[in-house]
């Protein structure tokens, strides 16, 4: 009997403490309009814990490095940038929640963040409702164009289609599609199938495995017995390790059966084991080995800051670019006010590690040079082909006649 009353009292006490502590820290924390203080606050929102942390922490690091660089040169509009870092915890609702916090409470001028499509989709309504800016740094499945998101990674016509062009130029007619079961691989494979139909290529099979899947015995045997000329791989994360180990053990090598991957960058190679993947092609817009003056300083600075053994990769570079592109747009606009920055951003062009990057004001994507690379024995990737000049972003594939049926109606692009 006595228990319940005392327990109850304790409950009330705890609840009160909780409530008070919840509001206690809140007062006085409130900031005024973005950019009105001595510094300009910018949000950084990546997964620092959970399954995506492996990938996203490095992007956070390169974004912080870009902020340091800008601050070392006096900041933007005479003010230093002050990063506010939040953890998306590999959980999409958390991304939405933290985005709301950054915009509403911290009053940041802009946010750099996200990795997975799911995290971007979860944040999108928040940024659109609050009329705030998100810079999203990872290659993605396209078919999206939000007025409040800038996409500094590749859209499909800057990565997947050049990858297919490359396979076609190598005479690969029969391809097999392998992917993790989520939005990017499914959309990418729809594009690949439409491309194949229009270009006389044949898709022999299309297989998806759950995220985090590690048992590829059956799948590898399916691929092997279909006897394709090449595999187009959109697997993600740990699955790549299991797939390549089991593929190699079954006799799969780059010479016998090339596997073109779009989600394996310099950082992943070590975990897969160079032996298992050496010689296999990948498609990106940037490699650590990319030759440009800006890249030399980027790689040098990154290693100096985070360790000599660290490698740089495409998403990291795209995150680094995002910060510089935003800062440049702000300088041009003369204010951090969102609509003014959006107006000023069109045509902003800077020499970045991957070469000249220009913002396309209409689509909020950037012009990027497509590069096909091959994994070397030292774990780095050497370029074997590039598009020669930056490709205009076309998230809804409007310039490709065969892609008509892929674009939803009404089109998400303007």
């Amino acid at each position, binding site marked *: 009997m006595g228990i319940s009353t005392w327990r109850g009292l304790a409950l009330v006490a705890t609840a009160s403490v909780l409530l008070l502590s919840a509001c206690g820290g809140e007062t006085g924390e409130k900031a005024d309009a973005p950019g009105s203080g001595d510094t300009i606050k910018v949000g950084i929102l990546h997964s620092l814990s959970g399954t995506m942390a492996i990938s996203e922490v490095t992007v956070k690091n390169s974004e912080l490095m870009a902020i340091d660089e800008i601050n070392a040169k006096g900041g933007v509009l005479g003010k230093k940038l002050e990063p506010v870092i939040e953890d998306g915890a590999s959980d999409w609702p958390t991304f939405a929640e933290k985005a709301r916090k950054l915009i509403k409470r911290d009053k940041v001028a802009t946010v750099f963040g996200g990795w997975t499509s799911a995290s971007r989709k979860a944040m999108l309504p928040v940024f659109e409702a609050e009329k705030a800016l998100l810079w999203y740094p990872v290659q993605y499945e396209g078919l999206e164009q939000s007025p409040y998101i800038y996409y500094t990674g590749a859209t499909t016509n800057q990565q997947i289609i050049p990858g297919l062009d490359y396979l076609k130029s190598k005479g690969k007619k029969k391809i097999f599609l392998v992917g993790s079961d989520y939005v990017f691989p499914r959309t990418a494979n729809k594009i690949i199938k439409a491309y194949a139909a229009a270009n006389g290529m044949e898709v022999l099979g299309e297989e998806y495995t759950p995220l985090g899947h590690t048992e590829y015995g*059956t799948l590898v045997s399916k691929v092997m017995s279909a006897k394709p000329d090449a595999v187009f791989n959109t697997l993600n994360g740990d699955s790549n390790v299991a797939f390549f180990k089991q593929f190699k053990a*079954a006799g799969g090598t780059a010479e016998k059966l090339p596997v073109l991957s779009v989600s394996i960058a310099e950082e992943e190679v070590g975990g897969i084991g160079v032996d298992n993947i050496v010689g296999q092609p990948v498609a990106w817009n940037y490699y650590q080995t990319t030759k440009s003056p800006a890249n030399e300083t980027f790689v040098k600075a990154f290693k100096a800051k985070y360790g000599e053994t660290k490698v740089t990769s495409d998403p990291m570079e795209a995150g680094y670019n995002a910060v510089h592109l935003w800062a440049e747009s702000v300088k041009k606009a003369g204010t951090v006010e969102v609509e003014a920055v959006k107006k000023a951003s069109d045509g902003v062009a800077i020499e970045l590690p991957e070469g000249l990057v220009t913002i396309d004001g209409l689509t909020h994507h950037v012009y990027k040079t497509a590069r096909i690379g091959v994994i070397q024995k030292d774990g780095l990737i050497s370029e074997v082909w590039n598009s020669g000049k930056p490709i205009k972003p076309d998230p809804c594939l409007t310039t490709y006649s065969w892609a008509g049926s892929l674009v939803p109606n009404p089109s998400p692009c303007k």
Partner: protein
Amino acid sequence: MLDQLPIGLSISGALLLIALGLTFTFGQMGVINMAHGEFIMAGAYTAYMIQDFAGDQAVIVALPLAFVVAGAMGLILERVAIRRFYGRPLDTLLLTWGVSLVLQQLARDLFGAPNVNVTAPGWLEGRLTLGSVIVPYTRLFIMALAIVCVVAIWAYMNRSRQGRRMRAVMQNRELAACSGVITERVDQLTFFIGSGLAGIAGVALTLIGPIGPTLGTNYIVDAFLVVVAGGLGQLRGAVLAALALGLLNSYAEFWTDASLAKVIVFGSIVAFLQFRPQGMFVLRSRALT
């Protein structure tokens, strides 16, 4: 049709290896050890650690070492925490889940978040080609290792004095204690062996899977399902269940896809327990719960 058989068997081998340790800790002692996956991880990292000294024979050298490392971790866990929880399996589940979180973060801090790699020995490079089926030597190695472990456990349980004590304690703890068996000592040994087997599984899995801080979470649910379907504490049950689930998995994936195959496997287990709620083999007991 027949082509899938060796692939299914190779999946069974891996399943059996990850579940063997659990037949000891869960099956015999009623401890739901969610940290079992992290003991597997410890085994994998053991192979990674000694790679610098053992070169490409690391996997072989690591087998006994991983057994001891993971076993010792299990023993510590048993001594410090689990021994207070015998008879309360659900509490051990929560407790060991906390332990597994801590161990994962520890691995992240010690070895870094990205995956690492262990090079397979050169002599495991090849593959066996049976008609159109390819069975890599790594898979044969895992199957052989599973068989060796099963035989060793069987011999230990049925032929050694210690093993008989273990069975006695499992069947009737009080009576065994009355007969002079030091049940506490038996518990420690059981937990040591069960955890050590997880370490061995970890080493074997480096041949086919990723090695990272979240390695254990990939396998833990599957491992428990093998034990549940096989019947608690039943070696032959675990063997049969691993065989059945491996084959089912591979055939279901062959006919449908990997996602649906998983759903089919889970569904079959629920359906199977309708007919045999205690798993394939039951330890007969007149004890009333």
